[in-house]
């Protein structure tokens, strides 16, 4: 008899599907690819995805196991996302099960139903409770805890969730029971989630000519696939273009998907979207709980949220009626997943737009060279916004030569004087240093010992406030040494500058000035970022210190001086993309100055004032820099003039990692027509988290040649019985070498 076979993709690093029988009692007619299925897998049970229904199997049909349960009544992802996933799986040569997993919210990966959970019951005050509260005096005396809770509930007309009552009194559960027994409070179902603040449509601001043209170009192409590169200098009103384009998309009854970098998804941006656009906004980023992310995902799928805003993984967001895809800060590295399924959300968005036949807008002040190249070749429509909104001029950038200058904790005298002048005018100053912690290493002043990480080819960073040495590469940490482990001297010193050190130095220099430091350490607690931003928005004299977290997307109207403390660390990176990154970062930071009415200035401290990158950026701007950099890439046949894939391998034993790559190289040999194989070579940071890393770079001028090779090569690689001590991965279009 011909039995029905389920081909299931299982979230595992195995490059194949697995055959199962349908679960007993299941209606085969109801099965659709894209449904989640619980299956036995080895000794575990896992959530797999139904990829295909078949009737044959290479295995003995009697040995197949039945699936345990079908979890969905319809495919969990809409058809267009399934198509995108299959495309991504082929392009990135990654196991399908893991690609599926990456596309779903955590709760759905764990098998939770794809439906809104019942809202938790809430506590409400009864009429008797109101009477009791009115007789406040005696209750306050007899039962102060009950009084406090009752008084709190009196201020919650919609009721309060039990969780929110916990901080009100020490033993809220017992007190609530007492209130219920007296008939003063009751627990009942929560009201339906009312959509957030009513939408008041605001008059849109007056547009510049360039904005008007950009909006017209995009809205005239809403019914077809077209990629637009919106190249707008910082402060030129890209967000306003997004908003008006989205309004046009919504007017056609379609939805908009906006991707932003993790750092760029600021409360300010969300508030602006909420103010201007109707209906609930579905927001997805890593700061949300799993339940919140599922809720946003469902709102998007049901089409109740007309606008979906999210970070990288939102490129897979299910949309009921997709109308446009917008990628803000498209050059940002965070769009590329750096482990597991290494996809690039910007590139996938372009593919998704093509599959759906809808426009894709890539926005940036400093587009990736890949995107500039596509615009040059007219594959993308270029929409320049060359002027700041309100006619504000671009802040002049000055290079400050600090050679032979006496430096105080990384600050030169001329910079300190400029800071003082701006503060004295009651303005804000932003200082950028892309290194958190107190100092990037601990040094013994007597013998030269350095705080080397035990597991990595890197130094451990000194964090003075938390009194710890932390490796920023593997996360290993330990208390700060009191003695040099080599010579026994106590004279250990922090070497180099981090944001924590800069903050301490500036507190001494400007004791009367408020200082806001923004980096991963100072914003770890939930809500602390919002508090910091609110302080800054309050305006007035203030010093802002931060890493790249401060550099992107924020609008600080009172900042008139931006200081880049150390431009040198980025000028001589080994990666061929180092100069592109540095140029983008400098301009992004510089863009924080003078965004409102007051003119701004940018000062770059450097020991290399004649570096061609700085010269071009300062005198001729990003477009000129990009043209030069692209010419260099073309001469060197580097991306975007070539296409790369990187085979990485790591193992505790360096020989094994290289051995695996040698084997891979031997397999590649006969297939490698028309491409270059470089390596095996050690990774720039060879040892990390106790493992030695090496890689093999594959490069071809033609993308098709590369992918035809990869199709055949990966099949051989997956079939090979490889050394189990070696972990390896394939990265298509790598953006970083290590």
């Amino acid at each position: 008899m011909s039995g029905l076979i389920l081909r299931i993709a299982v979230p595992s690093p195995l490059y194949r599907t697995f055959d199962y029988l349908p679960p007993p009692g299941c209606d085969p007619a109801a099965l659709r690819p894209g449904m989640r299925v619980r299956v036995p897998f080895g000794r575990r049970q896992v959530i797999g995805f139904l990829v295909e229904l078949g009737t044959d199997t290479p295995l003995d049909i009697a040995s197949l196991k039945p699936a345990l349960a079908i979890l969905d009544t319809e495919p969990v992802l809409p058809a267009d996302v399934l198509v995108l996933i299959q495309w991504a799986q082929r392009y990135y040569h990654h196991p399908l099960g893991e690609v599926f997993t990456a596309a779903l919210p955590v709760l759905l990966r764990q098998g939770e139903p794809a439906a809104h959970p019942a809202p938790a019951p809430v506590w409400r005050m009864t009429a008797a409770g109101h009477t009791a509260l009115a007789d406040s005096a005696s209750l306050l005396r007899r039962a102060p805890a009950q009084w406090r809770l009752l008084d709190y509930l009196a201020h919650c007309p919609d009721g309060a969730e039990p969780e929110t009552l916990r901080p009100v009194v020490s033993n809220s559960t017992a007190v609530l029971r007492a209130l219920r027994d007296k008939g003063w409070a009751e627990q009942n179902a929560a009201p339906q989630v009312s959509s957030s603040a009513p939408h008041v449509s605001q008059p849109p601001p007056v547009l510049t000519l360039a904005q008007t043209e950009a909006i017209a170009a995009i809205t005239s192409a809403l019914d077809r696939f077209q990629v637009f590169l919106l190249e707008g200098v910082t402060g030129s009103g890209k967000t306003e273009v997004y908003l008006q384009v989205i309004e046009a998309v919504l007017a056609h009854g379609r939805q908009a998907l906006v991707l932003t970098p993790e750092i760029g998804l600021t409360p300010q941006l969300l508030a602006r979207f909420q103010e201007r656009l109707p209906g609930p906004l579905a927001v997805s980023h890593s700061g949300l709980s799993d339940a919140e992310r599922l809720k946003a995902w469902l709102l998007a799928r049901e089409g109740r949220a007309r606008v979906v805003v999210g970070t990288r993984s939102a490129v897979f967001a299910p949309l009921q009626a997709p109308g446009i895809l917008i990628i803000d800060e498209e050059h940002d590295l965070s769009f590329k997943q750096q482990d597991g399924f290494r996809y690039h959300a910007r590139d996938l968005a372009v593919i998704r737009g093509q599959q759906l036949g809808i426009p894709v807008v890539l926005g940036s002040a400093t587009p990736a060279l890949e995107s500039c190249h596509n615009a040059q070749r007219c594959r993308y429509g270029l929409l320049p916004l060359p002027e700041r909104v309100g006619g504000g001029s671009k802040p002049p950038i000055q290079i400050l030569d600090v050679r032979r200058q006496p430096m105080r904790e990384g600050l030169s005298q001329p910079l300190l004087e400029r800071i003082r002048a701006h503060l004295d005018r009651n303005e804000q100053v932003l200082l950028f240093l892309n290194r958190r912690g107190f100092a990037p290493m601990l040094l013994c002043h007597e013998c030269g010992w350095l705080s080397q990480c035990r597991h990595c080819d890197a130094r451990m960073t000194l964090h003075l406030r938390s009194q710890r040495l932390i490796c920023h590469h593997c996360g290993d940490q330990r208390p700060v040494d009191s003695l040099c482990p080599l010579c026994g001297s106590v004279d250990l010193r922090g070497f180099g500058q981090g944001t924590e050190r800069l903050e301490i130095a500036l507190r001494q220099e400007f004791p009367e000035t408020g200082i806001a430091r923004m980096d991963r350490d100072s914003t770890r607690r939930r809500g602390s970022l919002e508090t910091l931003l609110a302080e800054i928005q309050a305006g007035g004299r203030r010093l802002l210190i931060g890493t790249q977290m401060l550099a992107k997307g924020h609008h600080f109207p009172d900042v008139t001086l931006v200081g880049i403390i150390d431009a040198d660390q980025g000028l001589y990176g080994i990666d061929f993309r180092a100069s592109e990154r540095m140029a983008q970062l400098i301009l992004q930071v510089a863009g924080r100055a003078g965004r409102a009415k007051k003119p701004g200035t940018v000062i770059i401290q450097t020991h290399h004032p004649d570096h061609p990158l700085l010269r071009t950026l300062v005198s001729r701007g990003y477009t000129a820099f990009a043209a030069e950099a692209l010419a260099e890439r073309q001469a060197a046949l580097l991306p975007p003039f070539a296409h790369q894939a990187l085979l990485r391998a790591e193992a505790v034993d360096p020989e094994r990692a290289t051995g695996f790559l040698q084997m891979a190289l031997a397999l590649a040999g006969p297939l490698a027509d028309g491409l270059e194989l470089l390596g095996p070579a050690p990774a720039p940071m060879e040892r990390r988290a106790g493992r030695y890393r090496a890689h093999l770079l594959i490069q071809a001028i033609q993308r098709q040649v590369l992918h035809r090779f990869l199709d055949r090569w990966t099949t051989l690689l997956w079939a090979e019985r490889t050394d189990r001590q070696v972990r390896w991965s394939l990265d298509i279009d790598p953006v970083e070498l290590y």
Partner: protein
Amino acid sequence: MTLVPSAHNCLIITGQAAVPCEMRASPAGVPIGRFLLDHHSRQVEAGFSREVRCRIPVIVCGEPLARTAGQLLPGMQVRVQGFVRRDNPREGEYRLVLHATHIDVLNTESFED
């Protein structure tokens, strides 16, 4: 080179603090002080009495020594016991510093001249 833990390295010297002790703390919070000691005495050499002057930096680490050193003012007489160490490991630099293990303040009057 093997380390000889018991090898002798002990200097006892009296003199005046030439400058107030500069205090700081290591990242782990160990206090570290440094001051200059001016020594002036007569010593016997080859059977003849002679005058001796020197100035040596004194390093003071940890409590309670650092607290004592922190109170020193220029001109105050102290007796410092400790070990000497080459200040700078660079080739050709042989300046020594004295790391204190005991400090006795001999008088608390500072000089003004």
